[in-house]
């Protein structure tokens, strides 16, 4: 048992524990309430037309009503984002793992990665449609093009961050490449990998929705938005936005939670 665990279990620390959680929960809640209230008031006061900016209350009630369908569409979008991330992450992490010891190779791929990061990926969406079809295939491809260079860069820097003395220690044990990789380089890469993953999950979601917007099925958030926006059903569009945000936040929080759990040994993760 760690000293922090013990500290948290003593009853004297209880108020502070509550205080810490309150500090994390209360401010966002207040901001949320204030923002929604302000929004409602502005729509009311300036008499903004419904198709331009609907009231939060309207959006909320339709959101609840349509929840079943929205969650289904969200699931489809998440599926595309997830599969794209898996493919892109696999390619990026794989290339980083293969090349991190070979400077010129990593450098060469690094330049491609830098270029890809500068490329507006959505401009590639029409092309992926030509190559991989209008349905999921093209969207998965676009998401992987967007996420692969991010995970490549972060993983590469992480793998290379292994302490020089620790590498010599492994060498002094006559540890093979494979053992050194798992026992030393991978743990060093993890914090970087998670930083990259937190960025990549968000980008995967954004890119998935944008590429769905480019065509294909309506049974996903991007397609739904395209369809409803064309018919100027603004409230419907907003329910999809809310769903996208909720999924984005939960995704991020899940990754951040795993990050905290997996890296609980990491000096930067102890304490608040």
């Amino acid at each position: 048992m760690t000293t922090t665990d013990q500290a948290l279990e003593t009853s004297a620390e209880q108020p502070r524990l509550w205080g810490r959680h309150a500090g994390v929960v209360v401010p966002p809640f207040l901001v949320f309430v204030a923002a929604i209230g302000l929004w409602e008031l502005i729509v009311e006061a300036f008499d903004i037309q419904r198709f331009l900016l609907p009231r939060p209350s309207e959006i909320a009630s339709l959101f609840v009503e349509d929840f079943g369908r929205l969650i289904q569409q969200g699931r489809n979008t998440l599926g595309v984002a997830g599969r794209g991330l898996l493919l892109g992450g696999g390619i990026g992490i794989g290339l980083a793992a293969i090349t991190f010891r070979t400077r010129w190779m990593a450098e060469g791929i690094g330049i491609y990665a830098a270029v890809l990061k500068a490329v507006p990926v959505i401009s590639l969406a029409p092309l992926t449609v030509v190559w991989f079809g209008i349905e999921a295939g093209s969207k998965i491809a676009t998401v992987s093009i967007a996420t692969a260079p991010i995970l490549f860069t972060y993983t590469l820097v992480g793998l290379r961050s292994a302490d020089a003395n620790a590498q010599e220690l492994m060498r002094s044990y006559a540890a093979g490449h494979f053992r050194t990789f798992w026992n030393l380089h991978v743990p060093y890469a993890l914090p970087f990998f998670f930083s990259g993953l937190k960025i990549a999950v968000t980008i995967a979601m954004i890119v998935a929705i944008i590429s769905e917007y480019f065509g294909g099925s309506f049974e996903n958030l991007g397609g739904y938005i395209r369809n409803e926006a064309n018919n100027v059903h603004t409230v419907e569009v907003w329910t999809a936005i809310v769903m996208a945000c909720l999924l984005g936040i939960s995704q991020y929080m899940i990754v951040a939670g795993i990050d905290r759990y997996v890296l609980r040994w990491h000096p930067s993760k102890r304490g608040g």
Partner: protein
Amino acid sequence: MTTPDTSREAAASGAQTAIAFQGVRKEFGNGANATLAIESVDLDIAEREFVSLIGPSGCGKSTLLRLAADLIEPSGGSVLVNSKTPRQARLDRDYGFIFQAPTLFDWRTVWKNVALPLEIMKISGMSREKKEEEIERLLSMVGLDGFESHHPYQLSGGMQQRVSLARALVFRPSILLMDEPFGALDEITRDRMNLELHRIWEETNTTILFVTHSIPEAVLLSGRVVVMTARPGRVQEIIPIDLPYPRTTEVEESTRYYELVTQVRESLGTAMAGGL
């Protein structure tokens, strides 16, 4: 006062050589950028000997140690470890290396850090219970019982370095290569660690090559002190330390001890003057 331990003297002067440097030269970089770190170093370290390397910083002490450890290769001359090439000695896991920084793995507990070499080396003829017993014994020897499941960030610098000492001892290497192992510790912890190290050395059959920049430390611990010149590093003088064993605080108060400290200090002064 006890008499000098004659069997130990015999071991130091006779029989087997643990580490042999012969005309060793090491150059870093090449062409116009090259730095000559050490040149024509001859040094024999006998089995069970405790030898300290001392010299101005940048004179190549770490370089010598890393040559013996096969972490780098000499540019000239030869290095033999247990009568083998350093590479073979490394593959045979003949030595343990201790760095100035504890170099613990943050993601492993104290226990698992000490177990690391055993995991990697798959030492044959040592049962699981035996290994666990050994780790436990070492941890209590370095005074860390009760900290088995702590992570490195929960330990002080001195405790971390003690873990690294236990980790180096756990696979029972015949040689310990120590690069200013206690240099970053406060004096009190350092004194304790020194006495502990010395006790371990007396209890086991380990050969120790110890880099330090503390003259009293070198004199107190060693059978011989090797003084090196400034860059390019050469052996300036080898000073035998004829103090009685075991080395205790009592020894530290003897006149001979002071004479030897002075002798090393003067030799070091010459070494530094020569280098400038």
